[in-house]
């Protein structure tokens, strides 16, 4: 392992902040040129702190120590800030998540890329400009000469991520650290960026990939190191770690990946402290599951357009029709800008369609007045992606839920507490969260409170817009299982909107694939997932992160 040729060699790395206990403990690994090592862990596991320590950027009050920390054969332990500045960019490059904010939004991308050259080479302005064009070409950005003057905000997510990578590899550093480089991207774009990183690895660069997503890294990483609570719990070849994980934490993460798991299969372990102890076998309750054929929600020829800043109109939702039957789940999948969220807002009648209508429980919904709708609203629950943003930050969980129960948020009668406790129990939370405010909860707990709030009005229909997109994969698994449980117990009908076909395929009976405002394919989940008809569905399916081992 410890060949002298290692691009990066770390032994027993410890990182702590201030007087607190270290957040990274005893981390050791090597990467050789042309190899891709992925460090995978959930949020708060210490993976980003590890990555930043390798660049001397852990922060002013960070304490970094190690047996050794060698970059390209030279020790970088205890380097001065000045010495680090000479190495960063030249000996090691960094690619961060979402280039919209990781490239200076006020400067043209060409200037950002040229900065690396300005700082480390004696190239003149003209030579730098030429090199920038070469780099943009190398990362596969079409028409570089038209793009160099653009701001990151003028490019698409994939284009600007390529520009960010171009800035990081401008000096051909022997080591490239990529911290969640594809997290904010659509799956098809994500696949392209991963291919680019793979190509860079193929060119002899050592790549350290940091990710929360096992399925993503399994596509390109040669080796995987699983990080949990500041320590590397398992390191090995990708096939070995993902195929036969030895550690508890790794097994849990592998099990949580929803793609290719049939509907109803549990993704999380029932014994996690937060999950209610529900029977893990579902055969007895499967009768409730059978859709009885009643249509609870119907969209008929929905269209909605918006005005662009330049005055032209953009069709966000274009002639969308579908029907949702009682007790079943309709998954709507599409990439950003496909019209999913506009559809959700139309279905919730938060926005009036230009054409078409939505009917709920066989009654007019979007064509009714808000006064009429208000009587029906209790039957239609909504769950949003940003649970934190959907709560008043000053309200406690008790206030949020008693408000949703229609009790007013001030009432503290014993029967209120009993109803709140039973509601929390249903979503797998203990009554101890009642006095807490949203900011004091974890991401998974917040989404559970969001689900509890949606259930408070005893809805028959739940509209979920990206309900698990901001969650770690094991937490996502628990929330998906929870949604499955409440659907069975209450006989709910679900609209489940997501960009992730893997998740949608796991939870849905029917799938609608959306693109540019239109439904391009609509059919039974198993059929769409197994043999997609539309070329776009095929493309989307091919890009779904799965464990490719």
């Amino acid at each position, binding site marked *: 392992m410890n060949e002298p040729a290692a691009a990066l060699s770390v032994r027993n790395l410890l990182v702590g902040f201030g007087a607190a206990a270290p957040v990274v403990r005893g981390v050791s690994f090597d990467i050789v040129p042309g190899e891709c090592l992925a460090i995978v862990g959930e949020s708060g596991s210490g993976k980003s702190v590890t990555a930043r320590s390798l660049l001397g950027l852990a922060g002013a009050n960070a304490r970094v120590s190690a047996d050794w920390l060698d970059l390209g054969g030279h020790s970088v332990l205890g380097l001065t800030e000045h010495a680090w500045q000479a190495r960063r960019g030249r000996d090691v490059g960094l690619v961060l998540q979402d280039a919209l904010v990781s490239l200076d939004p006020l400067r043209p991308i060409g200037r950002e890329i040229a900065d690396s050259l300005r700082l480390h080479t004696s190239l003149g302005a003209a030579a730098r400009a030429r090199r920038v064009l070469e780099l943009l070409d190398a990362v596969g950005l079409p028409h570089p000469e038209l793009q160099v003057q653009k*701001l990151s905000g003028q490019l698409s997510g994939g284009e600007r991520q390529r520009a960010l990578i171009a800035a990081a590899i401008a000096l051909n550093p022997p080591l490239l650290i990529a911290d969640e480089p594809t997290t904010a991207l659509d799956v098809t774009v994500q696949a392209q960026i991963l291919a680019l990183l793979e190509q860079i690895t193929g060119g002899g660069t050592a790549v350290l990939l940091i990710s929360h997503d096992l399925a993503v890294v399994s596509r390109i990483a040669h080796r995987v190191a699983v990080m949990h609570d500041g320590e590397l719990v398992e390191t090995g070849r990708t096939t070995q770690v993902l195929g036969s994980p030895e550690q508890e934490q790794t097994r849990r993460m592998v099990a949580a990946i929803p793609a290719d798991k049939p509907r109803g299969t549990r993704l999380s372990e029932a014994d996690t402290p937060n999950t209610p102890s529900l029977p893990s076998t579902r055969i007895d309750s499967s009768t409730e599951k059978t859709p009885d054929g009643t249509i609870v929600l119907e969209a008929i020829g929905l269209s909605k357009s918006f005005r662009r800043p330049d005055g032209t109109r953009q069709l966000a939702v274009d002639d969308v029709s579908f029907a949702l039957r009682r007790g079943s789940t309709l998954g709507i999948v599409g990439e950003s800008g496909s019209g999913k969220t506009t559809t959700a807002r139309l279905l919730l009648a938060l926005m009036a369609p230009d054409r078409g209508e939505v009917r709920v429980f066989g009654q007019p919904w979007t064509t009714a007045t808000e006064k009429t709708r208000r009587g029906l609203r209790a039957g239609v629950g909504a769950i949003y992606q940003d649970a934190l943003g959907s709560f008043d930050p000053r309200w406690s969980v008790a206030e949020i839920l008693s408000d949703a129960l229609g009790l007013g948020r001030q009432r503290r009668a014993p029967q209120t507490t009993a109803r709140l406790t039973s509601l929390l129990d249903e979503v797998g939370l203990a009554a101890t969260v009642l006095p807490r405010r949203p900011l004091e909860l974890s991401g998974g707990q917040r989404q559970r409170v969001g689900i509890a709030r949606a259930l408070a009005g005893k809805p028959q229909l739940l509209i979920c817009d990206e309900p698990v997109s901001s969650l770690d994969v094991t937490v996502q698994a628990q929330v998906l299982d929870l949604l499955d449980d409440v659907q069975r117990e209450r006989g709910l009908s679900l609209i489940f909107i997501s960009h992730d076909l893997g998740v949608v395929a796991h939870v849905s009976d029917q799938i609608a694939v959306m693109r540019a405002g239109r439904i391009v394919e609509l059919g039974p989940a198993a059929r769409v997932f197994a043999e997609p008809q539309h070329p776009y569905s095929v493309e989307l399916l091919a890009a779904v992160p799965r464990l490719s081992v």
Partner: protein
Amino acid sequence: MFRVPVLQLLRRVLTRLAGAVFVLWMVASVTFFAVRLIPGDPAQAVLGGPGSQASPEALAAVNAQYGFDQPVIRQYFSQLGRLATGDLGRSYALNLDVGPLLLSQLGGTLLLAVVALALAWLLALALATWSTRSGRIASRVGSALEIVAAALPHFWLATSLIVVFSIWLGVLPPISTGGTLGLVLPVLTLAIPLAGFLGQIMRESLLRALESPFVLSARARGENERGVRWIHALRHASLPAISLSGWAFGSLISGAVVVETIFARPGLGRTLLNAVTLRDVPVVIGVVMIVAVAYILMTLLTDAVSRLVDPRLRLS
């Protein structure tokens, strides 16, 4: 690099112009009626103020000459008509044309406000960069200085500065003598509270910018602290302060009323105070109109500077 279609540009200019005219009309109307609420007879003001023993015949003659005997609404429209042609009328008290009178006072006030604004920016920048750079204690000290400075009232600061620099140290003149030296204390009086205010905003946005991912990216390219600040962070940090500078300029002009009076400096502020005391309506309206125009121009200027610093604004 960002080519704006001519038609779009024209539309923007016309919208702005229409907005400016509307603002001026409103300002003129509000001032016209507000001045009417001051008790006293305008004819009396023309004839030397409340103290003078004007005969009823003289008052009647003045009323007829100035149109004070006309209905208010007619007076309002004839006033508007004159303003529209650029005629600010004649001062009751000084018996001079208001236009040339105010123009002669404008320069002093503009100089005061512009120098004070520039100094406030320099002080705020220095304080914000120093306090975000030199550790936690510096940050606390910087923050405390900003709050204290922003809270200082002009009249108190002016008197304190005079006591320290003119009476104790004897290095600066207590009243404006016209030279550069005489400008120092009035400018400091206006600049220090504004610097505290701008500094607070700048430090907060600078801290936010320094924590952004693009700064981390820049550091990872090997950018040094100076580059991180001057190429990236300060540009972001200056945006909110630029937008507020239009408002700040307006507050400087109102501050000039106090400062010009204390330092016995000629200027619009002092002229306004005198005119209000003497119920000299045309001068009051004239000063208010000039300040409104200055305020509109300054807002246009800050908009233009914002667009220069933030290219994203040029896109939409």
